[in-house]
């Protein structure tokens, strides 16, 4: 089907997130205003106004009532999804990068960037059911990795936190004590900064994308490398199909070098790979800048991509897609 072009952001996209039911799509961009769209037809439902800097990521609660966003304005905010009102603001001393709700939505993990003398950190916050009782206190703060932490998510049963970032090392932390449990093998691991990390629908494995032009699939418990997908350009965004054994990689050459080359040279396609055979299946063209964000609809029948060009492209798969045989 023809993709639906969603123009609502004025700056490059940074993150995309579907809610659990797959009817809403949340988008974050560098233009301070997260936006929510109908995931079916791309109609814009509303915006969440209040941030004063680029918004790097978001997560939505399982019941689709609350949204959490992390922003370069050194805050993470909780929002009422339906009304767009701010419920609470977590203040930090450096930009907030990645946010993720735990299973049960009673905890959230927020990462902050290194800033001035501060190193990067992973904060665990308790999220109360009643927003008026919410406090900004951290349950746990983990420090250690060098450079920015680009993504931190919860492991199975909320017992671990998985982080990845600029130092190209994936780490698994104990979410109770903050102890480092595992580190990805240097040999098989990424060689350049990890830009993105996405969990599979059942939470058994996760996919990391890196500027070393590859994406890697890992076991969530043992942190063993399962698969590697090699591509021709830096990977900025990854997504896993919840329905079929497919993974999608998005990226492209660095935005600063884009204007100097032909649009085809930039490789701004979203590339599909067979998850098991590690072979490329196809590509979806359209963006005229690198792809910064990818997300699969939980039903696996559509996906959306957000680019440096400021567009969100919503793709519903043709019936042929479900019969691909290689």
């Amino acid at each position, binding site marked *: 089907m023809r993709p639906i072009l969603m123009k609502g952001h004025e700056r490059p996209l940074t993150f995309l997130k579907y809610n659990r039911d797959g009817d809403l799509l949340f988008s974050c961009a560098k233009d301070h205003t997260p936006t929510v769209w109908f995931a079916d037809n791309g109609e814009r439902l509303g915006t969440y106004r209040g941030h004063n800097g680029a918004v790097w990521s978001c997560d939505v609660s*399982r019941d689709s009532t609350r949204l959490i966003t992390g922003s370069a304005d050194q805050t993470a905010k909780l929002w009422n999804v339906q009304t767009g009102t701010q419920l609470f603001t977590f203040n930090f001393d450096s930009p907030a990068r990645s946010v993720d709700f*735990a*299973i*049960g939505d*009673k905890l959230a993990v927020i990462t902050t960037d290194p800033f001035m003398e501060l190193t990067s950190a992973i904060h665990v916050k308790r999220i109360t059911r009643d927003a008026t009782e919410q406090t900004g206190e951290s349950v746990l703060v983990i420090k250690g990795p060098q*450079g920015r932490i680009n993504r931190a998510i919860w492991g*199975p*049963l*909320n017992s671990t936190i998985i982080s990845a970032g600029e130092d190209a090392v994936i780490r698994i932390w104990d979410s109770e004590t903050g102890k480092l449990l595992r580190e990805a093998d240097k040999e098989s691991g990424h060689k350049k900064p990890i830009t993105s990390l996405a969990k599979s*629908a*059942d939470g*058994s*494995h996760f996919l990391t994308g890196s500027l070393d*032009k590859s994406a890697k699939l890992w*076991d969530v*418990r043992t942190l063993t490398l*399962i698969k590697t997908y*090699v591509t*021709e*350009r830096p990977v900025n965004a990854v997504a896993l199909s*919840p*329905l079929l*054994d497919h993974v999608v990689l998005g990226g492209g*050459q660095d935005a600063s*070098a884009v204007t100097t*080359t*032909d649009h*085809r*040279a*930039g*490789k701004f396609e979203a590339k599909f790979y067979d998850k*098991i*055979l590690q072979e490329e299946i196809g590509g979806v063209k359209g963006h005229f800048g690198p792809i910064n964000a990818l997300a699969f609809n*939980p*039903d*696996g*029948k559509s996906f959306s991509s957000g680019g440096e060009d400021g567009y969100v492209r919503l793709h519903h798969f043709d019936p042929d897609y*479900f019969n691909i045989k290689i």
Partner: protein
Amino acid sequence: MASEVMLMNEIESTAARLGIDLDNFDYSSVKLPPGEYCGIVSDDEDVYHDDQLEFDSGFGNIIVVDNLPVVPREKFEKLEGVIRKIYSQIGVIKEDGLWMPVDPETKKTLGYCFIEYNTPQEAELAKEKTNGYKLDRAHIFAVSMFDDFDKYMRVPDEWAPPEIKPYTPGENLQKWLTDEKARDQFVIRAGTDTEVLWNDARQSKTELVYKRAYWTESFVQWSPLGTYLATVHRQGAAVWGGANTFNRLMRYAHPQVKLIDFSPGEKYLVTYSSHEPSNPRDANRVVINIFDVRTGKVMRDFKGSADEFAIGGTGGVAGVSWPVFRWGGGKEDKYFAKLGKNMISVYETETFSLIDKKSLKVENVVDFSWSPTDPIIALFVPELGGGNQPARVSLVQIPSKEELRQKNLFSVSDCKMYWQSNGDYLAVKADRYTKTKKSTYTGFELFRIKERDIPIEVLELDNKNDKIIAFAWEPKGHRFAVIHGDNPRPDVSFYSMRTAHNTGRVSKLTTLKGKQANALFWSPGGRFIVLAGLKGFNGQLEFFNVDELETMATAEHFMATDIEWDPTGRYVATSVTSVHEMENGFNVWSFNGKLLYRILKDHFFQFLWRPRPPSFLTPEKEEEIARNLKKYSKKYEAEDQDVSMLLSEQDREKRRMLKEEWDKWVSEWRRAHEEEKLERQKLRDGEASDEEEEYEAKEVEVEEVLDVSEEVLSYHEE
């Protein structure tokens, strides 16, 4: 060079991250712990074992000046001043870098001194320039490198007869030609690694022969017959070869060597370096050495300022057009020649001196080229005196220096010469002014070298105003291809030097209109040609059969920068080198344009097929084989089929394995997931929802009313 730049970038970014200011950083203060190399591989570790002295001492920047006057203390400072003055003209003497020892008893100098420069290059230059310098009649400087002293000291006083080493048979350097599958090799350079690989086209992959990191410091080059692979280092060049791997066969000392060139029969190696002059107004100093490849001996060296070597043609390094010395006379490596001012200097390799002890005098000659097979030079002299003296192309026989043929050309602005690979034909492309002198048009003068009296034919294109973009002879053949016309869609024409009735007239075969091409690549066997659109055309490729005059395939290797046929004409390699940031790597195609495989490598610098020596078969025999090809090919076709069956079988097996592995992993995970089910439920406040998470693909029909309109239709009864 590019690799160094890249490395530097990485170093800079690392330094930036660690907060180190590189500008004020003293690199020499970095010391590795003893016995620890931190994974830094020496580019040539054997060197350190073989010649400990030469490289370990690290006094390469010190010279010793002997035969100085012996002076008492009063005159010490004066002498020191004189020496300092002489030697600081050549380079910067280090602080406290001049040391003149004094006899402790007599307080007189000892008649020698040590000078330390900042770089070994300066020291070497100083040695070269001042050795034999006459301070006065009694004191002629004897300058030597400090490093050489140990060597001199170790010369035994008594002569001992050289040991006669027992003969050890050398390796078969041409073993690669006996490959059972008749595959070809190529060398690639990417990042810091240099690899020699087999092109295993049948299995659509490569097979590693030899790989080495930091094998060369700038580039690698095959010798023309493929026997050697040459590498370039700071200390000089080296050649490598062997039966099954690559061993160093010989080294050729030439500090700071920049360019190398083999003679066509690979008997000699020419190396080139240019050095910054001490006075910036002077031209660069150029050193050229000609080595015997097998013995490593310098047969002749040439030194001088760059100006002397930069006559005619531009490009190359610092205005010197490379190769300076062009080899002629076929595969025997008998002659080589250099263009000079108003002359061509032709040398012969028996004595390495000028033929008849004098150069070939040709007033105002600007270009020349050798016939690829015969000792014949074609030279070009441009128009002089505003058209009073016409331009001319002449053919000169060597060593008799007899003019075989000459052709005067009027109102010519520029000229280019193209030899056919057998030396049968010479095409001269002449750009001529129109009557108004405002524009130029192009014509060809075609010489038939092997026919009596060397007849010349003039060829003009159908539209003679067309610009010529490329020209290429069919190797060993009688046809040539021309790309002409204007961008973006020029035409490609094919001509033959024979006509149907063999009357010795050139005839046009066909013109292909509007092709996206700007370069021509004939198969080494002739018949097939790749019309390529490089650079602006982004790597368009058209594989064309000139016998049938039909296109076999069109393809694209996006951003391709280089194209090379393998020496047998079976495969074509196209590559994207590091001039582009993205897409680096190479593709290998069959001769008819089928993509066989594609390999991506970051920082890709070079792809070179290993050349093969010419076949020993006579042309008649070759023709016979070509006629009976069906008979021979049967065997290979069967083999091909077996391989492809095996491959698809292996492929299926591999896929099955992968699937099984995955399924096993998934089932294991499911079990763990199931065990944790209750706990998860608890985390969600008892919401039992794991099942819901499994989505199923269900077909749902959705009807949407887009528009409803009512219309009154008139009803007619018939």
